[in-house]
Structure formats: structure tokens, C-alpha cells
């Protein structure tokens, strides 16, 4: 139930991501005050209407190109002000899967993947962490990927960026330890979203955004700094990381 003393607030960067939208629906059902940030005003508005109907106490949108933006501190302060100065949950959800074979030839594509998933995500995460530290409470949630746990040929540029953001987020969590705020990286397995359209999605390893969202929602209030979504990926990745290189190199996934 919503506590009626104060309405909790959530800042969602990359608000049009399918997983972010599914998490936002859970926040809305709890009656939170929401601010969605992304590039497309029209699409953010479509989500905002939905969240309003579902019970969010208020939903605002702000168009920012999160990857291109350079005045990150100034923009972040403006976003915080829109939420009345308090951020209980800050979610970093923007990302770009990209085209791995192209990225191996084309620096522009490689740069796009690295900046969307690492540099930009890292700068926003650091800025958000700074705010949570000053505020003395709040939860930073960063969307990572199981692809970051071990480089493999199908997506290692994306994987490397996700490994970097995971390490950064773990570091923030370490810094936050024993203080008020918390940080968590959620390492997400393959999920049926527009980002992965074009993949063969049959099989038990594919998850629905709603399932992943419910894990993210719990992780936002949980204690663990690293959460896998769904949880079974923790064990799969443990095995994959343990496979010796001579065997791993003969595998084609």
C-alpha cells in the first residue's frame, strides 16, 4: 500500500524502454509520483497516460537525448526539481543493443553501443548517485545484462559496455554501503522486447518484460547490489564463466 505520509517519487531515464515501462506500471500501481525521460515526447506521453490511468499520483515527461546530452548535472538538477527535490528511485534504463558485426568494422556503430550502454549510462548513474548521497536516502537501479558477464562473439561490444556499467554500479553500491542510499545492477537475461525483435524467441530462456519488471521492482527495495532477472541466470552465468577457454571457444552461442 502507498504510505500516505509522503508520496514516493521515481525518476526513470530511458522511459520508453519496454522494461522501464513495465517497471513504471508497478510504480504507478503503488501511487508514486513519476518522471519519465527519453527522446520521444509522443511516446513518453503515451506511457504517461497509461500510468496516470493506472493510479500514479502524477506523471511528468521530459524530453532529453540522454546519450548526446553533455550538461548532465544541470539537466539532472532540473529533473530533480520537477520531482519536488526528492528522488526515491532513480532508474537508468536507456540502452542500445546495436549490430555486433557492424561494430567490429565501423567505429561509429561501436561508439554508439559503448556510449549508450556505458559512458552515458555511467555519467547519469554517477550524477544520480551524487544526488542520493546528498539526499541521504534513495535507490539507484541500473539495468545491466547477462551479456556483460562473459564476452562472446555474438555481442561482445554490447557485453563490454554492460560489464563496465555493472562494475561502476557495484562500486557505487560499495561506496553507499552502511549509508542511507543503495545501488543495484540488475543483470537481465534475454527478454521479449522491441530491442530483441528479429531474434528467435522460442525456448525457456526468454522472459517477458512483466516478469523482469517484478524482479527489478523487488531489487529496488532489496539489499543485494547485484540481481539477476530472472534469478536462474545467476547460476547459468556462473557455469558459463567457469567454462575453460578451450571449450568455450568451440561453443557457438
Amino acid at each position, binding site marked *: 500500500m502507498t504510505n500516505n505520509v509522503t508520496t514516493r517519487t521515481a525518476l526513470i531515464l530511458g522511459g520508453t524502454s*519496454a522494461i522501464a515501462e513495465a517497471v513504471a506500471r508497478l510504480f504507478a500501481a503503488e501511487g508514486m509520483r513519476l518522471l519519465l525521460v527519453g527522446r520521444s515526447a*509522443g*511516446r513518453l506521453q*503515451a*506511457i504517461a*497516460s*497509461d500510468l496516470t*490511468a*493506472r493510479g500514479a499520483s502524477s506523471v511528468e515527461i521530459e524530453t532529453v537525448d540522454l546519450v548526446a546530452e553533455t550538461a548532465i548535472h544541470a539537466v539532472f538538477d532540473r529533473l530533480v526539481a520537477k520531482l519536488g527535490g526528492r528522488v526515491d528511485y532513480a532508474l537508468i534504463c536507456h540502452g542500445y543493443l546495436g549490430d555486433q558485426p557492424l561494430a567490429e568494422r565501423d567505429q561509429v556503430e561501436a561508439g554508439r553501443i559503448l556510449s549508450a550502454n556505458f559512458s552515458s549510462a555511467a555519467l547519469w548513474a554517477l550524477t544520480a548517485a551524487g544526488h542520493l548521497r546528498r539526499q541521504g536516502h534513495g535507490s539507484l537501479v541500473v539495468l545491466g545484462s547477462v551479456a556483460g558477464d562473459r564476452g562472446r562473439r555474438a555481442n561482445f561490444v554490447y557485453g563490454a559496455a554492460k560489464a563496465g556499467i555493472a562494475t561502476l554500479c557495484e562500486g557505487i553500491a560499495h561506496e553507499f554501503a552502511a549509508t542511507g542510499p543503495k545501488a543495484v545492477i540488475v543483470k537481465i537475461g534475454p527478454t521479449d522486447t*522491441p530491442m530483441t*525483435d*528479429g531474434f528467435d524467441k522460442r525456448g525457456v530462456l526468454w522472459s517477458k518484460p512483466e516478469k523482469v519488471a517484478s524482479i527489478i521492482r523487488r531489487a529496488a527495495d532489496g539489499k543485494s547490489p547485484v540481481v539477476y532477472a530472472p534469478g536462474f541466470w545467476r547460476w547459468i552465468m556462473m557455469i558459463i564463466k567457469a567454462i575453460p577457454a578451450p571449450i568455450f571457444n568451440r561453443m557457438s552461442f
Partner: protein
Amino acid sequence: MSAFHKTEAIKSWGRVQSGYHWAAVPHWRDEIPSLLDEKTQSQATVLATGKGRSYGDSSLNVSGRIVSMTRLNRLIAFDPVTGLLRAEAGLSLADLIAFSVPRGFYPPVVPGTSHVTLGGMVANDVHGKNHHAAGTIGRWVTAIELVRSDGSHVCLTPTEHADLFSATIGGLGLTGVMTEIEIRLRPIQSAEMVVEDVPFGDLGAFFELARESDGSWEYTVAWIDCVSTGRKLGRGIFTRARHAADGGFDAGSVTSRLSMPVDLPRWVFNSSSIKLFNELYWRKKANRRGPRRQCLAKVLFPLDSIGHWNRMYGSDGMYQYQCVVPPECGRDVVRELLLQASAAGEGSFLAVLKTFGGLLSPGLLSFPMEGVTLALDLPNRGTRTLALMGRLDGVVSEAGGRLYPAKDGRMSSAMFKPGYPHWEKFAAHVDPAFSSCFWRRVMA
């Protein structure tokens, strides 16, 4: 990457018809116009699809394009005072109900499963067990946003673009892509229903019960034991229900706890097993007396508790034969249909009988009309089953009845056109880029 990708064979719910498609799965309403643009997409015809619960081929467009709408599942506006809801057309009924019940509202009309989209409900102008009280869903639709292949967006209401509105209600998705739908929900006082099962011995008793119950029970439906012959012909269980007046809004889950993991082998369904099932079902229900309370989902979506129940009919699949015939001859026609079915040894696992009230359906191709509707689930036994349905067609058309396109995968043009006298008026509203397997067949 092209917006459309080639799929594996897609089967409809009855699992008889199937074939590959070129599918697009948009996530945003703003993607729809470009998906319909013939200049940038292929020349193949297109059809919007929902959850694939149509039994036959009305939701298939084999080797053509489909636009799967299920990701367009956002609410757009909800008025908690009036219950007016506007949503994207891909919103599932299960999600709609999960949203509306705790707020004290319920869809005015629901079909027999919650695994349908709002768009699918409107495209088939679905009816429910409360047809005698509420009519079809189309009567409760206040606005539709339709995108056509020429790039136009049209807002349809019962008064604006009324012709296209009445073509789109029950229009099997052929008039364009519905992106937004606004409907009026009805208030409820409880997430529970008061339900009563009343056994009846023959068809005469069924019509008597229907007459007696329609005034005071909002939902009525009957299961018929269609294996028993002679004196027991037409015996069954009449179920009547209404929304409870109190009891809170804990929605009651419609998630399935059981699932059919594999196809049952075809020998499971033979005349003895069907006979046994019908006898056991009769004995279980016939001994229960008096009203009881049950959650909405259990009463209205009994089969949703078994995931993939269509696999019970094995890999050959099943047909559902659902017809409606006018009231005057209802009793005789239903008797004749049941006799034909049991004489063919194609006794059905599930036979459902319901009277339709006189409330007019707003769609040009709406199925319900005043009278009585019979639905028979028939395991697919190839030519034998087709021959039986051919004989049933004769009885239905003789009586001035018609078949439900949402359930149909084989009716001929000669069966369709007389049953739907407005078909020519409807055809004029079909978007030239749109088609379906069903439409090509009945127009042939």
C-alpha cells in the same frame, strides 16, 4: 531490418488451419501508418491480429502480412466515476479486468475467454452469457480510432462516420487497424457472482428455463449432453448467474494453474470416451442444488483455468460449429442439429446452448441475432467432420440462421452471403490493402 519478419506456421485456436505469415509487432501507435504503407512495404495484403483465439481462419492471412497488436496494450484514459475507458486495441481482456475490477467496474460484455484483445472483441462483436441483457460488445463502444492503408486516421463513433463504425464493429479487422477503442464499463458491487446450476431433461425444459431466467438472471448458458439420444436427447445443465451485491473486489485470478503440455493422441477422443465424459459431467452437476457464490473468472472463463486446452483435441485440431437460428424454429432446429451430430457418431465433448435476446447488434457483420445459438466442439476427423458440418449447414440455412465467423474455418460463400444480408454494404468499407483467409474464402 524490415519491420515484417517471416514466421513459422501460425495456427489458429482450432489448430486445423495454419501457415506462415510476414509479421510485424509494433510497440507504438505511431508505427502503424508506415506498416500499412504499400509504397514502402510489400504488396501483400495485411491484417491486424490479437491473441489468436479465433478458431478458424478469420485471424489468419497466410503468406500475407499480419500486424500483431498485443504490445499496444496501454490505457489512454479512465474515468473512475463513469467507467468510460479508452485503451490501445491490443489490451487484453485479462489485463483490462485486472485493472477494472478493483475499481468497481467490469466489461459490459465478455466472451468465454479472457485471452482476447479489446480489438479482437470489437472486430468479432463478441457476445457473452448476458446477451439477453446487454447485447454485444459493440453496443458499448463509444469510439474507435481507425488507421487505414491510405494513411488516414478516422475517429469513428455511433454518430460520426457511422457507416464505417458499423462496418468496423464485427468487421473482422478488414476495415483497417483499430488503434484505440473507447468503451463504457459497467459498475459492479463485487468480484463474485451468485451462480446456480439447474439440470433439465430435454430441450423443451431448456427453453422454459431460459424464458423464466432471462428476466432475473443476467448471465445464462446451458451445457447439453449431446451424446444421449432418445428420451435423454437434449438433457443438460442450465447455468444462471448474476453479479453479487456485496463481497469486495479481490479480483480472483484468471491465470491458469493447469496446462495441457502436449497434444493428446487422437484415440483419446472416441465415442466411448466422449459418452463417458458427458455422463460424468451430467452426474457431477445434476446433483448440485441451490445458488452458490463463485469468483467472476470461474463463472465466465471456466476454460481459462486450463492453459492450451485446445491441445486436448490432438494434433489434428478441432472445429467449433456455432450457429444462431431465429426463435420461432429454435427448438426444432436445435433438436435436428443434435440428432444429426449424434447420428454421425461425432458427439461433441462440449455443446453449449444459449438464447439470444432481441437487442440489435450494431455491426454489419455481427453474428448475434434474436434466437438461439448452439456451439458444438468437433474433433477434426477430416472429411467425416466436414461432411457432418455440411449437413448441419443445410439445417441452419433452411431455418434462416447463420454461422459465427470467429469460430468458422470452412463455411462456403453460399452459406455466408445469405446469412449476412449486409455483406455487400460491408464489403464497400473493406480497406483495399486488407484481407484474411476467411474473407478470401467467403468472397470466392
